[in-house]
C-alpha cells in the first residue's frame, strides 16, 4: 500500500481540475447532486407518482426526462472510476469497514448511516456539498459558499467530542 502524495501537490492538482471544469464547461465540480438524482431515480422505480409530484424532485422527471441524463451525474460516474483506478494503482483497494480503533463494525455502520442522512439532507438544503459549495463556490469567492464552508467546520468541531469513540 503506497502512501498518499503530498497534500499541497494534491491540492494544486485538484485546483487545476476545478479550473478546467470552469474553463471548459462553465461550472464547478460537485459531488452531491449525482447522489440526489440516483436516489430520486431509485425512488421512481418504487413510487413513480409520489416522486413525480414531489415539489423538490418532480422537475428531475418533467416532460419525461431521465433524471440521470445530466452533466453532474456523468461527472459522478467519472469520479467513481477515477477513485477506483487510483486506489487500484496504489494498492489501496480492498474490502473493509474503515473505522477508528475503538468502534465495532456494526457501530461504525450505524454512525455512517446517521451521518449520511444528515449530509444528504444538508447538501440539498445548501445546494451543494463540500465540493460544489466548498471548492467551486469558494474559489469564485461566493459569500454564501464561504459562510457554508465555515459552518461545516463549526458543526464538525461542535459535535466531535460527542462522537469521539467513533474515531479515537
Amino acid at each position, binding site marked *: 500500500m503506497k502512501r498518499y502524495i503530498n497534500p499541497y501537490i*494534491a491540492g494544486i492538482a485538484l*485546483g487545476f481540475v476545478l479550473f478546467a471544469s470552469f474553463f*471548459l*464547461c462553465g461550472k464547478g465540480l460537485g459531488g452531491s447532486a449525482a447522489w440526489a438524482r440516483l436516489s430520486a431515480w431509485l425512488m421512481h422505480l418504487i413510487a413513480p407518482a409520489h416522486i413525480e409530484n414531489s415539489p423538490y424532485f418532480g422537475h428531475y422527471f418533467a416532460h419525461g426526462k431521465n433524471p440521470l441524463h445530466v*452533466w453532474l451525474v456523468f461527472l459522478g460516474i467519472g469520479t467513481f472510476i477515477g477513485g477506483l483506478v487510483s486506489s487500484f494503482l496504489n494498492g489501496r483497494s480492498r474490502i473493509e469497514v474503515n473505522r477508528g480503533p475503538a468502534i465495532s463494525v456494526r457501530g461504525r455502520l450505524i454512525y*455512517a448511516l446517521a451521518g449520511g*442522512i444528515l449530509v444528504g439532507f444538508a447538501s440539498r438544503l445548501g445546494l451543494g456539498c463540500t465540493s*460544489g459549495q466548498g471548492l467551486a463556490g469558494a474559489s469564485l469567492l461566493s459569500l*454564501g459558499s464561504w459562510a457554508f464552508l465555515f459552518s461545516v467546520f463549526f458543526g464538525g468541531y461542535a459535535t466531535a467530542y460527542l462522537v469521539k469513540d467513533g474515531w479515537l
Partner: protein
Amino acid sequence: MAPVLKLAHMANSPADLFVAVCLGFFFGLVLETGGLANCRKIAGVFYLYDVTVVKVMFSAILTAMLLLYASSALGILDISMLYLPDTFIISYILAGIILGVGMVIGGY
C-alpha cells in the same frame, strides 16, 4: 474564449457529457491520491490528528481562484458566465452546520 463549451452552445451535448466524465475521472483520481477518500483522514480534521483534508482543500481553492483570476484578467475567460449558486445565507449556514455534524459522525 472560455467557458468553451458553454459559449459554443454545447451545454449538455454528448461532448459536454464526455468532458464531464473526463473531469470526474481526474477529480476522483486526485481526491483518492491525496487521501480524501479515507474517512479517517476526514475525521482527523475534527480531532486535529491529521489535517491533510484542510491542506488539500485550501490549496485547491487558492489554485483555482488564482487561475480563474488570471484567465479573467487576460481576457480569455468570461467569469460572468460561470455557474454560481444564489446566496441564501441563512439556509447555507444551517446546511453547513448540519453537514459538519453529519460529516464528523459519518466520516464523509
